[in-house]
């Protein structure tokens, strides 16, 4: 058995704290190799079960139907090859691992009260490869939920949260592409933010039901399918005082298509973004800002330098189909 090579991966939370591009869940294995999480071809379609205890707000059947819509949304991405299969209801609670089934469901846990946590995803993986062996998702039953197609005032949209958690279930980490507008005593997520942004849209909103290009590019990198001809990439280095800057959020915007994609720089300050449409690209680099923190993106809160200003690349950054535009470097200032 390969159980000795299995571990439980980092818990990924979706939070409703009124509180930043595609990013894969990555880690370095025992051989020093960078790996990302994925479902292996032998596990497709990925089977999922639903825990048979309903939330207060709707039935298990309604929950399953809205969850199926969320799975279908990811499955419909043309440039990705991932399939799912609903396998039935189960008595097994989510987050009970090594039961060989992938369970989604609502749980009531006193430790979740007041945390603002809407849901979470956890995995068992083969550490040498990154292949997912089992994954569960829970949703916090103490939160007021809506399964209405049009949303419901004062209630969080279940389908949006399921879509976000299934993104983790596929191996996506949090995206930095979101903007929280500061309002009295709270932050509100603006429309157009990535589904994989760590914070949810406010109660009543159904804004999180549509994948952005950033989400699509992320899942397409893990499960590539179809022609990616016509797409381009861009790379460069972000530096501060001449040294590579880790954890800088780089956003790339094509004003002709209004496509926005982002990425975080690695330990050397390097970034590379795939999936761009050809054309002129506006490159903006910014530090992770409140209400998010580096740990929301799998980075170390104590090691990431946030003391610098938003900076734009002022030279040309044109990308052409099927090729990489290199050396789009940005030096940021304190």
């Amino acid at each position, binding site marked *: 058995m390969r159980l000795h090579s299995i571990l439980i991966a980092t818990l990924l939370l979706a939070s409703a704290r009124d509180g930043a591009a595609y990013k894969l869940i990555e880690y370095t294995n025992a051989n020093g190799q960078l790996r990302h999480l994925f479902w292996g071809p032998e596990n497709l379609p990925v089977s999922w079960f639903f825990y048979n205890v309903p939330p207060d707000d709707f039935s298990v059947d309604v929950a399953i139907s809205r969850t199926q819509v969320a799975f279908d949304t990811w499955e419909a991405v043309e440039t990705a090859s991932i399939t799912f299969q609903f396998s039935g209801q189960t008595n097994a609670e989510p987050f009970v691992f090594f039961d060989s089934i992938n369970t989604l469901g609502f749980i009531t846990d006193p430790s979740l009260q007041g945390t603002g946590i809407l849901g979470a995803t956890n995995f068992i993986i083969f550490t040498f490869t990154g292949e997912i062996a089992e994954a569960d998702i829970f949703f916090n039953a103490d939160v007021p939920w809506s399964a209405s197609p049009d949303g419901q005032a004062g209630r969080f949209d279940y389908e949006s949260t399921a879509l976000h958690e299934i993104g983790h279930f596929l191996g996506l980490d949090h995206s930095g592409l979101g903007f929280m507008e500061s309002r009295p005593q709270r932050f509100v997520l603006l429309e157009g933010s990535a589904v994989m942004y760590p914070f949810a849209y406010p109660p009543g909103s159904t804004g999180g039901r549509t994948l952005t290009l950033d989400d699509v590019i992320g899942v397409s990198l893990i499960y590539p399918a179809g022609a990616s001809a*016509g797409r381009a990439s861009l790379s460069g280095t972000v530096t501060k005082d001449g040294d590579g800057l880790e954890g800088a959020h780089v956003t790339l*915007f094509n*004003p*002709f298509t*209004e496509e926005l994609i982002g990425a975080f720089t690695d330990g050397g300050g390097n970034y590379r973004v795939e999936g761009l449409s*050809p054309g002129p690209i506006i490159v*903006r680099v910014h530090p992770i800002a409140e209400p998010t923190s580096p740990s929301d993106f799998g980075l170390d809160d104590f090691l990431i330098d946030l003391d610098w200003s938003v*900076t*734009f690349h002022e030279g*040309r950054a044109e990308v052409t189909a099927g090729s990489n535009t290199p050396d789009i470097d940005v030096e940021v200032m304190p």
Partner: protein
Amino acid sequence: MRSRWQARLGRKCLVLAIGVAWGLPDAAEAQFTRYRRFEAGAFLGSMSIDHDLGTASNVFFMTTGRSDDIPFGTDFFGARFSYDFSPNLAAEATYSRARQTFSLDVVDDLDAGDVMLGEQFEATQQNVGGNLVVQFPLEFGLIPYGTIGFAWVRTDPGSEIAGFTSESSDGLNFGGGAKYFFPGAPWVGARFDLRYQFLSEGLAFADQLVEPRNTEVTIGVAFRF
């Protein structure tokens, strides 16, 4: 080898034939038939361009774009060819080519403020026009004139832009200028032109309609034959 006399005779025969073809047989026009009706020339100049690309936004910032003006030089050049129906009325065909650059202006209110990103991409503008020319020849060789006509403009980006291969537009031209033909060599002259152009559409950000306006100032040489 043909003598100069033979050459002149041949040219007069050509002019006469055209005169007949256009039906200009009376005395005044007989004088005009000795006049050189065809004119060809080349020019270069500058172009002031009023061409906004529109607005594009995302969760972080808003972007506007515009064409930069083209300074006097070889980035804007062309040729004109005309035929005089009479001393006061001519038809003119024009072709010009311009290298445009576009700049972007980013408004990032909460963080970076207003940031100008100059010369972010370029495009080649090819412009074909057909104009009527009303001209007023003066005795000392100066010919002031005014023009009006149509334009057809094609814009090709310097490098690929998604969803955009080229942009074609119709438009309206009007303007004027002056030509001066040297008394000692009336087949060669210098010209100055000021032209204004309305275009019905142009390169723009997604789903936006723009109507560029070009103001051309050119100088050139003209040859009559």
